[in-house]
């Protein structure tokens, strides 16, 4: 441990580090928050399980949306309309206005931090079109995405990390936050954390605590998310009694390599790739007679899920379908689909020139999360107030639910989310601290919960195996709460995930060493994942309509309920309470900050 200049000791073994602000997570949102705090002169710690530029933000390629209008006319109100529509009207319109209006500012700031955006010939930031982004309230596609080649996330992390180094942000790399510290009055006072190199548990005592821990896509068997996305912030919030919002909404991509999750670009179907079931049948002909394999993402994903559910999946477990390009000219494949051949060999063990690729709808992005106001302050229901602030607690990025993505996210709005809400969480923390928020006394039992968890893991005999428990959870989520949902499967899924939870609360590890005990770290991650999986399953079972990415077989498209959406009963946010696995709801905010409401209507493209 390097910088213990503010070290206190509350007991013989647990050191306390005092900071103005502690940020958990060093991806895009965490780094953006830290800039605000450090540049305001506040003593700021950032904890990360990995070196910041290895955060999962590095995987973002598509770009960041902003209505700069560099290539053609654009306006933030058009972007706002697209985002509300994309969210299937579940996004809060105050937060969506806030985000779309702030987009230009945060993109230009990033440029000033040194972000190497692609340029037009006249030196402006180059903008490209992206799905769902339109001009003039849905009229025609508009060029709104700002990118740095195919490494936008990577370039963003580097630019913001350098800015933080300059601003003297203190990084605690290869540290894992374990539990949120809350006192009797509900104030958040920091986190307990573990330094992986030593296994030492430390208390980070802060005036402001900001979560930027990313998503929890690893709850699914097939996920494009890196292994690091274990929902640590959501797990910590849930254990501290804070509800999780809209957890039934997960974005899926139709074609991930079965068993690995690595994405197969939609370009493969564009070049003539054909989806087949275990009978070798080109099943898309039944679901979309005209578009066939080129039907939209959600139609293709639902068809694949139906084939698997009805027993026409392939492989020993009949849990994937095949993407066949063996009829295409090998030279065309190698030229037009670079990397696909390698992906097939590396992750499916298949030479796609000779054999079809095993594919399955694959989890990609978490729309729900820790409930926040657009200022980045965490909120929860209290004494009749749906949005009572949890003092001292802030969140931004994929772990938070502001809510701007609602029931489905538009491409390139995720990088915008982490910039805008990372910044606003930082700004709000600065504002609250300058208004006089002090360090509050740590409760006497500050680290008891954490130490009990560690001790249980170290001493338990005859408990559940971590890898087996994780696999059971991932299989349950994939089979019962996947891209297309069935009432009976969801009901069984709730029972199954509660069974898995019992195992997840009874984990055993063989390695008891202190230093670099990766088995312990993975067990602690599993305790976070299960909170998210449970919230997802129970929230999904409860929502009896189809909306955005939550599509149920028993809520089909009808004249009365277009796309299966039922606004009269279900136009509301889900709040899952981890305390007793109960669900409550809160209204969607339909009142933007300065413009007129985008009125409810059927979502169609």
């Amino acid at each position, binding site marked *: 441990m390097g910088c213990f200049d503010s070290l206190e000791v509350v007991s013989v073994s647990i050191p306390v580090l005092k900071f103005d602000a502690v940020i958990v997570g060093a991806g895009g949102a965490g780094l953006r928050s830290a800039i605000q705090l450090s540049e305001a002169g506040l003593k700021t710690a950032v904890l990360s399980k990995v070196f910041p530029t290895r955060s999962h933000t590095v995987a973002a390629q598509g770009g960041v949306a902003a209505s700069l209008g560099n290539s053609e006319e654009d306006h933030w109100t058009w972007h706002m309309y697209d985002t509300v529509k994309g969210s299937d009207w579940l996004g809060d319109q105050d937060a969506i206005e806030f985000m779309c209006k702030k987009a230009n500012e945060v993109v230009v700031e990033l440029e000033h931090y040194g972000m190497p955006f692609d340029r037009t010939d006249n030196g402006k930031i180059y903008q490209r079109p992206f799905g769902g982004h339109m001009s003039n309230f849905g009229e025609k596609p508009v060029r709104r995405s700002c990118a740095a080649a195919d490494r936008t996330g*990577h370039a963003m992390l580097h630019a913001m990390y350098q800015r933080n180094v300059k601003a003297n942000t203190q990084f605690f790399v290869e540290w894992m936050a374990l539990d949120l510290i809350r006192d009797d009055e509900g104030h958040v006072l920091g986190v307990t954390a573990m330094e992986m190199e030593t296994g030492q548990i430390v208390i980070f005592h802060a005036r402001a605590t900001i979560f930027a821990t990313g998503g929890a896509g690893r709850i699914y068997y097939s996920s494009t998310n890196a*292994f690091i996305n274990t929902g640590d912030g959501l797990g910590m919030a849930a254990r501290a009694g804070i509800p999780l919002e809209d957890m039934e909404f997960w974005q899926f991509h139709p074609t991930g390599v079965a068993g690995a999750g690595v994405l197969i670009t939609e370009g493969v179907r564009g070049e003539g790739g054909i989806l087949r079931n275990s009978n070798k049948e080109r099943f898309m002909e039944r679901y979309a007679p005209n578009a066939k394999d080129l039907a939209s993402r959600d139609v293709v994903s639902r068809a694949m899920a139906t084939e698997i559910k009805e027993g026409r999946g392939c492989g020993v477990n009949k849990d994937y379908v095949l993407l066949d390009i063996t009829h295409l000219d090998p030279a065309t494949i190698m030229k037009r689909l670079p990397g696909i051949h390698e992906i097939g060999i590396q992750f499916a063990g298949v030479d796609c020139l000779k054999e079809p690729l095993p594919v399955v709808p694959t989890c990609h992005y978490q729309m729900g999360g820790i409930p926040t106001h657009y200022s980045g302050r965490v909120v929860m229901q209290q004494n009749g107030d749906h949005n009572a602030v949890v003092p001292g607690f802030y969140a931004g990025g994929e772990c938070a639910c502001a809510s701007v993505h609602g029931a489905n996210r538009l491409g390139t709005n995720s990088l915008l989310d982490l910039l805008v809400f990372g910044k606003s969480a930082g700004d709000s923390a600065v504002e609250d601290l300058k208004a006089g928020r002090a360090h509050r006394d740590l409760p006497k039992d500050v680290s008891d919960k954490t130490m009990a968890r560690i001790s249980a893991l170290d001493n338990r005999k005859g408990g559940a195996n971590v890898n087996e428990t994780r696999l059971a959870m991932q299989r349950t989520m994939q089979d019962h709460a996947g891209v297309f949902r069935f009432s009976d499967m969801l009901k069984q899924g709730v029972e199954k995930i509660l069974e898995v939870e019992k195992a997840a609360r009874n984990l055993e590890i063989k390695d008891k060493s202190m230093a670099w005990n990766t088995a312990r*770290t993975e067990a602690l991650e599993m305790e976070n994942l299960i909170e998210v999986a449970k919230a997802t399953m129970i929230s999904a079972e409860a929502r009896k309509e189809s909306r955005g990415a939550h599509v149920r077989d028993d809520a089909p498209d009808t004249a009365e309920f277009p796309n299966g959406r039922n606004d009269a009963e279900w136009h509301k946010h889900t709040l899952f309470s981890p305390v007793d696995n109960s669900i409550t709801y809160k209204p969607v905010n339909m009142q933007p900050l300065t413009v007129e409401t985008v009125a409810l209507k059927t979502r169609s493209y």
Partner: protein
Amino acid sequence: MDRQDYERLRWRCIRRGLLEVDIALTRFLDEGFDKLDDEQQQAFVELADMEDHDLWHLISGQADIDDPRLAPIVNLLRKS
């Protein structure tokens, strides 16, 4: 390589930014790493220190590496 160095390396292989790199490095660590001599293991540590995109381009054959110490390990990663 002692236990501590190995476990540190393990963490840096099983928690990457890109899923592709997670899978490739974890698999190699589990299946091929033990068979390397000390010098080759050190070369692997150097590769694991690279940025995710650069490393993935090497593993997937979209880029090549000239360094005679690292190239054989890249070849093994490509085949694993």
